[in-house]
């Protein structure tokens, strides 16, 4: 019997090619495990068992016929429930879409299907990808497998929880302000947010269109790289996507970091880090030096304005994107009356509090009399921050800083104070604001709960970034799942 805990994409590919297990049996084993395990974790919203087994059968036929298979063939993945899979319910964690069946596959789903990946199911998330803990889900709230009294992070909490509890080998999530990296960090996993435009958003339910990106959550950097290779690239149906081609093998290019300059942003004050984070962070910097990297201080003067910028721009885009949810088009509401009544009553009842809060905030910053002072000003500050990142990357190859200020917090700890919840995004949003790629890898201090170390690179420099992250992972040996 295969121990699910030991599986990675590479291992599965080898087992399948050597015919030590069939894709069908492997997939079935996952579903058997999910049947008992997920009662504890609540990672999954919907399981796609019949379709998954059918997909697995197709892979087995190919293997039997000695056909070439991709390294993702037969690999069981979990998909965040704001990514469309044709014919299946896609709820975005909201009552508003409780009955919405997707009419088409997202681009990444098409790419992953073509590579032969298996979709085990859709995972729970904060409603419409708004939150930092997955507590805003209108359905089940996923738990952190490392400590069930704690959140798995958000908004891709279900995806992270599925992988961390070995109910999937890897998962896909979306990251607008940290929603792939933060849950990965909270659950001891690798989470990657690609450069804005590297991955098509076609079939991702839009939250903040100029910031959203789809990214993988995996047990190691290698697996994240394999997934990125498949999902990246130009898509004519998403005009913001770029002709970006990424080869997973680029993570092996350098054997050390000699000649690589890593910048530590002086505006991110390490003196404010809590004790265990400071300890794990220092250990990490030592590892990077051992790898031969040159570490130097760099300034991004307005980096701390990323968060206020984000909480103006993102709600503005949300208020626009969520205007389409009216109780008529995508999913029925029971409301009656005039057209305006139907809108008011449906949106009033079917949207959760955080969703409502952000729509209202967004409506305010875009409204007459306030647009210039808020929305326009935020765009100007964003442009300034982008320029500062550009200048920084002229001096260094990579930046590093932690993913979150704290490890996974307890359920209910931040739900009373929205601003406290928002502030936990402080280390993740800069990469979204600047559109640059960022990857979080797990690091540990002396306490049992993990933190995350982020590597940040300039636009489309994923190869350099993931190569460094891979080397760091090898030397720091925090691969607790392997």
């Amino acid at each position: 019997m295969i121990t699910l805990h030991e599986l990675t994409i590479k291992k599965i590919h080898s087992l399948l090619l050597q015919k030590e297990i069939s894709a069908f049996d492997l997939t079935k084993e996952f579903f058997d495990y999910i049947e008992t395990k997920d009662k504890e974790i609540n990672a999954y919203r919907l399981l796609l068992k019949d379709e998954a087994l059918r997909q697995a059968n197709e892979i087995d036929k190919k293997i039997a016929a000695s056909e070439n298979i991709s390294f993702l063939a037969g690999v069981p993945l979990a998909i965040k429930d704001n990514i469309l899979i044709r014919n299946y319910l896609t709820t975005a964690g909201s009552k508003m879409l409780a009955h919405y069946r997707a009419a088409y596959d997202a681009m990444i789903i098409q790419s992953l299907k073509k590579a032969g990946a298996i979709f085990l199911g859709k995972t729970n998330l904060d409603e419409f990808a708004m939150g930092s803990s997955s507590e805003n889900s209108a359905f089940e709230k996923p738990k952190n497998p490392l400590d069930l009294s704690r959140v798995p992070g958000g908004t891709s909490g279900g995806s992270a929880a599925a992988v961390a509890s070995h109910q999937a080998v890897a998962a896909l999530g979306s990251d607008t302000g940290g929603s792939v990296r933060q849950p990965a960090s909270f659950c001891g996993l690798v989470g990657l947010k690609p450069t804005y435009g590297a991955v098509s958003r076609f079939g991702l339910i839009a939250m903040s269109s100029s910031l959203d990106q789809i990214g993988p959550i995996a047990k190691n950097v290698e697996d994240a790289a394999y997934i990125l290779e498949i999902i990246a690239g130009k898509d004519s149906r998403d005009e913001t996507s770029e002709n970006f081609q990424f080869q997973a093998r680029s993570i092996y290019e350098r054997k050390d970091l000699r000649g690589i300059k890593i910048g530590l942003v002086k505006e991110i004050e390490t003196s404010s880090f809590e004790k265990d984070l400071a300890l794990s962070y220092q250990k990490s910097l030592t590892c990077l030096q051992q790898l031969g990297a040159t570490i130097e201080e760099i300034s991004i003067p307005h980096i701390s304005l990323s968060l206020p910028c984000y909480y103006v721009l993102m709600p503005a885009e949300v208020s626009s994107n969520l205007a389409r949810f009216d109780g008529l088009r995508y999913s029925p509401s029971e409301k009656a009356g005039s057209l305006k009544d139907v809108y008011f009553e449906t949106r009033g009842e079917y949207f959760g509090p955080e969703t409502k809060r952000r729509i209202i905030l967004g409506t305010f910053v875009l409204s007459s009399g306030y647009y210039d002072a808020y929305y326009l000003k935020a765009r100007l500050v964003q442009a300034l921050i982008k320029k500062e990142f550009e200048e920084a990357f002229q001096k260094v190859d990579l930046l590093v800083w932690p993913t979150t200020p704290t490890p996974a917090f307890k359920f209910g700890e931040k739900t009373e104070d929205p601003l406290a919840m928002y502030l936990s995004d402080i280390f993740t949003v800069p990469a979204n604001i600047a559109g640059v790629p960022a990857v979080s890898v797990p690091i540990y201090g002396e306490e049992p709960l993990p933190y995350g170390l982020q590597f940040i690179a300039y636009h489309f420099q994923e190869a350099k970034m993931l190569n460094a992250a891979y080397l760091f992972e090898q030397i720091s040996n925090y691969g607790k799942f392997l």
Partner: protein
Amino acid sequence: MERGNLINEKTIEHLSELSRIKLTPAEKQRFEKDLNAILDYVNQLQAVDTASINLDEELLKIKTALEAAEKTEKEKLSFERDDLIDGFYDRKEDWLKIPPIF
């Protein structure tokens, strides 16, 4: 910075109207408090000197759909009309059935 009173009951009602979201009295109170706190926090943007930024120039750096038009082949959206109609939560023939709204 002093606590702003940028948002009051009237503003919340106006926003509720604009965004077509019905709010309960409790929610109105809650959001008034929340929005004031959040706007207080984002106010620090005001102090940033952005005189050096020409937004038009910045926006031009973002590729537009015009450039995308260079493509000779445009991939057609692959779903059929039937796929969309089959997805309707309630239907009568080819029509999406909704409650009477007029």
